[in-house]
């Protein structure tokens, strides 16, 4: 899975380098301006996310995986879905780590609703990234989007149980 992440980076970087090349050929000034903007956006986002990422890193080091497993393997489908959604909402884990983790949780007794809700809120709901979202789109947008995404994740998880 490390390889999948690496390929993404290579493709993404090639596309952006190519785009900058074409842009530079067409208009030097505009290109310089866009790169200035990119630099500003990068520094701002990186500056506001780095502390959050490190706190999550510490949190994951404190909470043992067994605890997550127990919660997601709850005998009540609804409860394990809810726990999955909550855990997913408050943590951020890169997707290429999340899937193998989910697979190992599944093998060791977590149930499907929990896993599905976990995967969906993990990526779609971001309590940890809320400050950054508010910075970009304001409080109302951020709260409504995250709350509705949370509900949607539960619905998707329950729907999957019906399908599978």
């Amino acid at each position, binding site marked *: 899975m490390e390889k999948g992440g690496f390929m993404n980076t290579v493709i993404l970087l090639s*596309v952006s380098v190519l785009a900058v090349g074409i842009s530079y050929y067409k208009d030097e000034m505009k290109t310089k301006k866009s790169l200035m903007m990119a630099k500003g956006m990068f520094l701002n986002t990186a500056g506001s996310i780095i*502390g959050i990422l490190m706190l999550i890193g510490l949190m994951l080091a404190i909470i043992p995986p067994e605890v997550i497993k127990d919660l997601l393997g709850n005998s009540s489908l609804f409860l394990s879905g809810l726990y999955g959604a909550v855990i997913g909402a408050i943590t951020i884990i890169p997707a290429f780590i999340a899937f193998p983790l989910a697979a190992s949780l599944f093998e060791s007794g977590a149930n499907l609703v929990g896993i599905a809700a976990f995967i969906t809120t993990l990526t779609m709901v971001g309590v940890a990234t809320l400050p950054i979202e508010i910075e970009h789109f304001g409080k109302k947008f951020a709260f409504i989007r995250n709350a509705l995404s949370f509900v949607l994740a539960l619905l998707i998880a329950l729907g999957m149980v019906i399908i599978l």
Partner: protein
Amino acid sequence: MIETVKKNKINIITIIVYGVVFLYNKDLFYRGLSNSWGFIREMIEILPAVMIISGLIAVWVPKEMIVNNFGQDSGLKGKLISVFIGSVSAGPIYAAFPFAQTLLTKGASIGNIVIIISSWAVMKIPMLIVEVKFLGLPFAASRYILTMPGIIFLGYLVNKLVHREDVLKKTELNLNEIIRIEEILPGYNCGACGYKNCREYAAAIYNKNAENDLCQPGDSQVVKELKGIQL
């Protein structure tokens, strides 16, 4: 000074927390750091390219094109393009915010912004292979089949609940004005005016916290244009 502390609140808290953990539990400190390194590496790998593409869109793509394809009246086609853009993109959700903000200031609808952010987060085509490998095709397929209409409906709901003005206070009104001021400045980011970069100086002028004749590399034309701008 107070501004700097306020802006870096979370980073300062992080340093303090890590300091305390280091004193009491060195093993936990190192495990926390090694977890964090994975996240930071992902950020360094993905974020610069996403920002470069956002910057290029900001200077090159005409507003009409965004309004036509992603605007309030873009219909189902706009929604599907939004799903597509989100799902072929790489990177964690926070990388989607500046990108989506750029589209929003160019006239994309709130609903389509939500669709882009959400599909960016959960419907990643590059990640689909990984999901199938670890959780099986039925799991991945049924999740995608339920998620896609779910996301489109989510966009519809948020579009109804959140008005453009709620968000634009944060983006278009401020950002467009600030960028307008920034465009007058020479863009050396030299810091001679006392601000970190031209953007911050422009924001300070916008918020009426700074005089408009502080730019050192800028000639009299720059000062004249800054004085002429209506805030």
